[in-house]
């Protein structure tokens, strides 16, 4: 990685930055860090790009509302020239205005349509009311004529007040939401003291509310009353309940004419509405073809101007200066890109790339492709390595899925995971283009190679664990066999079974007799899946030891990678005071534990009766306990040496006390099992403890001393001057 300076002509700058952007190999430094965002040179252009983006987003929203598919070509449009930006702006402006206008018109038309529909319903229903009411009116007239006291207070009042033989009822007609109707009726009756008469009828089909677009159920009502005071009161109540009143003519002929007029107007509106929607649809379809491409172009323009804001204008105002970090191996490609950019812009003066020497630490650049990107992201989340340090990501590509597989370990589930990962990998082009916004899916999609590898290794570890959906395979023949006699004779067989404790009892197939001496070649023996009682005893111990061995191997590998880093940077300080204490600490405690595990596997078996490392090992109950042994090592507990008294051959079948029998020394699985164990363990423990302060304090102390030395010598130099 080197720091370079670029000298670009003003006209060529845009094109050169566009070319470098397509390459993606350069990191620009901000040469104007103390300039605020509003004072930058190209802030106006960035603002214009923001405006364009906003318009495009509005377009996208409208297109989505109408469910028009947006075409997505996979080609990468190049960043357009600055002069093309004006064209784009004009296009977007026109589109936006057109759409807004169309939307406004549509809303107005829809409102008109709703009103006309309501009017149509009113006209239809009031026809019914008036017909029914004709009869009542005539009855009322006859009552008034007779001048008899009537129970109809309304008519009496009317007759007294007006003194006319034929009372003339006024009415208002309107439409109200169905839910509000009962309360409306009640309030009318109370407020007008029963002097008004309400007829209502529901509109069967739901109408669409103009503002929200949701369907509402409405009802037509007509209110009969007499007098102006009642009229104002009724009108106010209607306003309060947000009922819309419509002028309804008195006579049936007028009503009929109005009905016809309304129908024609409704038909006209329907056509106009249809045409408006068609027009809108056409505009959107035409726009949808290009919307994605425009978005990419606008984003590119914005990015270019953003980068141009980093540049410094030199004294002569003729060219722009930029500083950037480039990988040394890619300098040729960068030069080519600059040449292309200068040629495109038609500038006569070529752009200059100038390498600078600097003592600053360059940024770390890890080359990655679509496969390694996922793993690199995970490693970077722990912390990005310093410049020129070993990148641990290539190793994690295998160890991470492998450690997952050790935990997952099932042939059946592993196959499912493998198929899922395979599907994501093979369909990646299609899935990427679908632009699914769901976060969980994106998480799985970015990790598709990781899931695939985890599936592969899970199939392998599932095979080794001999576990497919919790069932085992017996491919090579089990190493364990039955040790109990089952005679063919019925009665003797029953007796044998009873001797064992019945069909449900679980006796142990002891390894001295049942085990053939050769382990199952690849994987866990299939007999263990049948041993429900103590299967976990065996498997847990195996998995724990596997975890210790694999984990400590990985830790050691990591420390050795660190050593390679120190060697590369020639940092003797680090090697002496970081690497060596680390490896000694690790070996004394954990590699010692690993060696113990391997030793116990190889040397101690179930039968016993031979010497191991100088101590006589009588039987499997004396096999050394590693976990308690480790604890005793840390507690520096004093233990007995050896397993049996006198450390000589003894026969476990003869009871202790008798000659030739075994006298165990204390709890023999907790004793020392090789000569000198207490001594060595004490040394290991003390060495490990001694390493801890070295790891913590040695390097900081030395660095601090060096710093003080430097300051001191700096001071003395000043004094001399």
């Amino acid at each position: 990685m080197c720091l370079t300076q670029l000298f670009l002509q003003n006209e060529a700058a845009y094109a050169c930055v566009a070319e470098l952007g397509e390459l993606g190999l350069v990191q620009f430094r901000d040469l104007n860090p103390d300039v605020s965002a509003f004072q930058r040179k190209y802030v106006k252009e960035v603002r214009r790009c923001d405006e364009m983006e906003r318009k495009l987003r509005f377009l996208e929203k409208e297109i989505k509302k109408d469910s028009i598919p947006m075409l997505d070509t996979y080609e990468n449009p190049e960043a357009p020239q600055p002069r093309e930006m004006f064209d784009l702006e004009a296009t977007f402006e026109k589109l936006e205005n057109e759409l807004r206008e169309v939307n406004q018109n549509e809303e107005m038309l829809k409102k008109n349509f709703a009103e006309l529909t309501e009017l149509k319903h009113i006209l239809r229903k009031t026809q019914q009311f008036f017909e029914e009411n004709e009869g009542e009116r005539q009855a009322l007239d006859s009552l008034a004529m007779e001048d008899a006291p009537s129970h109809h207070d309304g008519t009496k009042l009317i007759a007294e007040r007006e003194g006319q033989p034929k009372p003339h009822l006024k009415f208002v007609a309107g439409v109200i939401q169905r839910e509000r109707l009962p309360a409306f009726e009640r309030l009318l009756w109370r407020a007008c003291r029963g002097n008004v008469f309400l007829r209502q009828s529901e509109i069967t089909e739901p109408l669409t509310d103009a503002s929200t677009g949701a369907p509402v159920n409405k009802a037509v009502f007509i209110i009969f009353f007499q007098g102006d005071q009642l009229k104002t009161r009724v009108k106010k109540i209607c306003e309060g309940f947000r009922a819309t009143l419509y002028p309804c003519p008195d006579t049936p002929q007028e009503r009929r004419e109005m009905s016809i007029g309304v129908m024609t107007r409704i038909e006209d509106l329907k056509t106009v509405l249809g045409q408006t929607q068609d027009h809108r649809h056409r505009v959107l379809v035409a726009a949808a073809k290009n919307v994605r491409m425009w978005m990419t172009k606008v984003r590119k323009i914005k990015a270019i101007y953003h980068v141009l804001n980093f540049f410094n204008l030199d004294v002569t105002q003729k060219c722009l200066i930029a500083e950037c970090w480039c990988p040394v191996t890619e300098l040729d490609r960068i030069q080519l890109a600059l040449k292309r950019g200068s040629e495109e812009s038609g500038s006569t003066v070529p752009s200059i790339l100038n390498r600078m020497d600097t003592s600053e630490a360059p940024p770390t650049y890890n080359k990655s492709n679509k496969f390694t990107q996922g793993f690199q992201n995970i490693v970077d989340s722990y912390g990005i390595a310093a410049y020129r340090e070993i990148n641990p990501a290539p190793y994690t590509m295998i160890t991470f899925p492998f450690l997952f597989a050790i935990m997952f370990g099932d042939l059946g589930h592993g196959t499912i995971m493998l198929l899922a990962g395979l599907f994501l990998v093979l369909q990646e082009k299609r899935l990427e283009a679908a632009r699914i916004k769901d976060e969980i899916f994106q998480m799985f999609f970015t990790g598709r190679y990781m899931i695939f590898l985890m599936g592969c290794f899970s199939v392998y570890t599932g095979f080794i664990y001999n576990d497919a959906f919790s069932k085992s395979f017996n491919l090579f023949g089990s190493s364990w066999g039955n040790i109990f006699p089952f005679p063919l004779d019925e009665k003797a067989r029953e007796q044998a079974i009873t001797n064992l404790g019945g069909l449900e009892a679980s006796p142990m197939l002891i390894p001295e007799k049942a085990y053939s001496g050769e382990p199952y070649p690849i994987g866990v023996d299939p007999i263990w899946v049948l041993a429900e009682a103590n299967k976990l005893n065996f498997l847990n111990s195996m998995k724990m030891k596997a975890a210790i061995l694999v984990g400590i191997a990985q830790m050691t590998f990591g420390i050795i990678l660190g050593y390679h880093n120190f060697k590369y940077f020639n940092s003797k300080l680090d090697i002496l005071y970081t690497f060596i204490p680390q490896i000694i600490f690790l070996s004394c405690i954990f590699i010692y534990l690993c060696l113990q595990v391997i030793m116990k596997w190889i040397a101690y078996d179930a039968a016993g009766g031979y010497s191991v490392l100088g101590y006589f090992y009588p039987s499997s109950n004396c096999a050394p306990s590693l976990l308690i042994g480790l604890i005793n090592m840390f507690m520096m507990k004093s233990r007995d040496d050896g397993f049996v008294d006198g450390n000589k051959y003894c026969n476990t079948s003869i009871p202790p006390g008798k000659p030739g029998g075994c006298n165990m020394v204390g709890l023999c699985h907790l004793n020392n099992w090789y000569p000198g164990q207490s001594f060595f363990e004490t040394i290991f423990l003390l060495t490990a403890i001694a390493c801890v302060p070295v790891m913590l304090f040695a390097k900081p102390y030395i660095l601090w001393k060096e710093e003080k030395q430097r300051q001191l010598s700096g001071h003395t130099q000043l004094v001399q001057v």
Partner: protein
Amino acid sequence: MSVWIPLVAVTAFWLLVGAGGPLLVPSGPNRGIIQTMIVLTAVCCHMFWIIVYLHQLNPLIGPQIPVKTILWIHERWGDAKGELVSK
């Protein structure tokens, strides 16, 4: 003796994969990574196999199996070599 056969066979297999595999990788920008991955795969897989193998080499406990399953084992898989013991 036949303890060694699987040991040698499987170790030889992973050795072949780990040492020979990297030579078969076609040259290209990703050669180094693919070689690293092949070697690491061979090492990890072999290590895991040998851990499981060694753990079963000298078992200290045996499986506790219900008698009716033992009867099934007696009929399908056969008895252990050597003398049968009555409990």
